[in-house]
C-alpha cells in the first residue's frame, strides 16, 4: 500500500494524475448538469434528489482534486480558464441536457462509469484513495438506484418518449465505451494503473464491469453488449486521446464553460 499518492514511481504518478483529472472533471461537469435540473425535474422529490446528487458529485470532485493537488504531475494550469481542450470530462457532458430524458441517460451511464472507476481505486493500493473513496462509493449507490428506477419508468413511457430515451442512451453509451479506450493495446493508462495495483481492474475489466452493470437496465434495447459485460463488436476509436480519453477535444457552450471554470467567481476576485 502506498501511504501517499506521491510515493508512486514517477511514470505512475503521471498516469494517476491523468486518471484523477479525467474523473474529477467529469464529476465537476456532471454535478453542473444535475444542478441545472434541480428545479426542472418531473416531480418535487426528483428535484430534491437531483440537487442532492449534484452536491455529491461536486463533493467527490473536491475529494479527487485534493489527492491530485499533492502530485507534482498535476496537469492543471491557468489555461483551463480559457482553453476548452484542457478539460477532460467525458464527451456526453459538453452540452447541457436538453430534457430530463437526457439527464436520466447521463445518470445511468456516465455516473455509473465514474462509480466503476471510484470502486476500482477504492480497492487499489493508494491509501488516500482507498480510504476516502469508501464514503463516496456508498453515496453513489443511490445514484445508481435512482437511474435504475428511472430507466424502468422510461421503458414504460409512450413510444415518443422511449424513442428519445433510446437516442440519448446510444449517444452516452458510445462516449462511455470510448472512454475506456483500446483493449489490449499498449497505451492505456488504466492497464498500467491496474498492473501497479492502483486500480483493481484494467481497461478491459473496468469496461466489463460498466457493461455488466448497465446492460440489465436496457430492457430490450440491443447495444451490442452482453449481460456478462462483453461487447460483440469493438468500437472504432479513431482520434482517441489517451489523456482525455475522448475522441475529440471538448467544446462547451459558453455558459457551461463559465460555470465550470468559475469565471463569475474570478470576476469577484475569488479563486476556487
Amino acid at each position: 500500500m502506498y501511504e501517499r499518492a506521491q510515493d508512486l514511481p514517477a511514470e505512475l504518478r503521471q498516469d494517476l494524475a491523468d486518471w484523477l483529472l479525467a474523473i474529477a472533471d467529469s464529476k465537476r461537469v456532471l454535478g453542473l448538469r444535475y444542478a441545472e435540473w434541480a428545479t426542472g425535474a418531473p416531480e418535487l422529490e426528483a428535484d430534491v434528489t437531483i440537487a442532492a446528487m449534484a452536491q455529491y458529485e461536486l463533493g467527490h470532485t473536491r475529494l479527487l482534486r485534493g489527492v491530485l493537488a499533492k502530485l507534482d504531475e498535476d496537469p492543471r494550469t491557468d489555461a483551463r480558464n480559457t482553453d476548452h481542450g484542457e478539460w477532460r470530462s467525458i464527451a456526453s457532458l459538453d452540452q447541457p441536457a436538453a430534457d430530463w430524458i437526457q439527464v436520466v441517460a447521463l445518470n445511468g451511464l456516465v455516473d455509473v462509469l465514474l462509480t466503476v472507476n471510484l470502486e476500482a481505486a477504492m480497492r487499489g493500493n493508494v491509501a488516500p484513495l482507498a480510504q476516502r473513496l469508501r464514503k463516496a462509493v456508498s453515496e453513489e449507490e443511490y445514484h445508481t438506484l435512482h437511474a435504475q428506477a428511472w430507466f424502468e419508468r422510461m421503458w414504460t413511457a409512450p413510444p415518443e418518449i422511449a424513442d428519445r430515451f433510446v437516442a440519448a442512451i446510444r449517444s452516452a453509451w458510445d462516449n462511455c465505451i470510448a472512454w475506456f479506450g483500446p483493449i489490449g493495446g499498449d497505451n492505456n493508462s488504466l492497464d498500467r494503473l491496474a498492473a501497479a495495483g492502483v486500480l483493481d481492474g484494467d481497461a478491459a475489466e473496468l469496461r466489463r464491469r460498466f457493461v455488466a452493470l448497465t446492460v440489465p437496465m436496457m430492457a430490450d434495447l440491443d447495444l451490442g453488449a452482453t449481460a456478462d459485460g462483453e461487447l460483440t463488436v469493438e468500437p472504432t476509436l479513431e482520434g482517441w486521446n489517451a489523456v482525455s480519453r475522448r475522441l475529440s477535444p471538448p467544446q462547451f457552450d459558453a455558459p457551461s464553460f463559465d460555470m465550470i471554470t468559475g469565471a463569475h467567481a474570478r470576476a469577484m476576485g475569488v479563486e476556487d
Partner: protein
Amino acid sequence: MSKQLYEVFARHKREDPLGHIGTVRATSDAFARVYARNTYDEENWAELVVVPREAIIPVLELELLLDPNG
C-alpha cells in the same frame, strides 16, 4: 403513473427507537427508497426505512379535524 404516499422512519443509533421523520410521494418502492435517501440525508442515520402509507394498519384512528370529502 399514480403516486402513493410513503411514510419515512429512521433511527440515529442502533439502540434508538425507529421514529417517524417524514413522507415522500413516489410511483414505486424503488423511487421511494431513492427519494427518502436523498430528501432526508441531512443526518447520519443508522437506519432509514420507507413504508407505504396504505400498509399501515390503524389501531386507534385519529379523529379528522376536517372532512376529507368536504
